[in-house]
């Protein structure tokens, strides 16, 4: 069986096909057929497997997208959203610290940023402002 004309013809047609990832398998099968060190049953199984492999579809863009690109893109989008949130979370006005006994809060009012500070000591009118 392994040296029959039909298999030789099949081997020739396979080798005439454009190169693909299955080239190694085809080469191994040809080598096996020539060295005759495998049983006919084993070779029949190998040829059947090769045919099944050949019947498999080339990975389409969508399957590639589903299997590999979608998780990677999802992860990247997560990083992107996290980064944007991090960068934009810092508002235009930030109060980092206040003096002792003082408390400050910020808010917006009619287009202005307001810093509402409490805890000041009263300043009597005897203190000249200018």
């Amino acid at each position, binding site marked *: 069986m392994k040296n029959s004309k039909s298999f030789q013809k099949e081997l020739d047609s396979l080798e005439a096909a454009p190169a693909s990832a299955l080239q190694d398998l085809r080469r191994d099968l040809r080598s096996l057929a020539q060295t005759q060190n495998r049983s006919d049953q084993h070779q029949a199984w190998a040829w059947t497997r090769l045919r099944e492999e050949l019947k498999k579809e080339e990975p389409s863009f969508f399957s590639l997208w589903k299997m590999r690109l979608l998780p990677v893109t999802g992860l990247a989008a997560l990083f992107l959203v996290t980064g944007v949130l991090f960068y934009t979370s810092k508002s235009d006005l930030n109060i980092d610290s206040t003096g002792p006994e003082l408390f400050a809060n910020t808010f917006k009012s009619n287009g202005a940023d307001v810093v509402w*500070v409490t805890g000041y000591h*009263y300043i009597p009118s005897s203190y000249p402002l200018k």
Partner: protein
Amino acid sequence: MVYLPIKWSSWLALSLLAWLGLSFAHAQDVPLAPREIVVTLYFAQNGAARDELGDNLKLRDNLVKLFGYQTYQKIGTAMVYPHSFSPVTAWPNKLFSLTVQAVNPASPRYDFELSQEEKPVLKGSFIPKPNTPIIIKGPLYDQGLLILVVNAVKL
């Protein structure tokens, strides 16, 4: 059809998205044109003093809404040009000072420190924007209130 190896495609997509993300994030914090920082100290009261905010009705309405006082007397104004990374200090009067310093060349953000008689009142950072004043509530004085208004003016 020629496919890129999956590993390279993944890295390409990841790099592209990361680049887009960084570009977007950077766009939120791009350096702006130089700003002049103007600090004005007002004394708000309900007495018969002359109101000096008649030409800035929006700010006046905002101050009335926030603090309830009817007249705003300008005590002093000081300007600084924080164009370098050295701190610059504005003294609108002898009581208050505002020190401003640029954070880094890629950011329009400035660190600031407000002091009262050279003692720190507030420390923080801000991005100066024209037409967006920063109103800082000051201490009570006599029968009124001191208020600091920080404005950014595009040079």
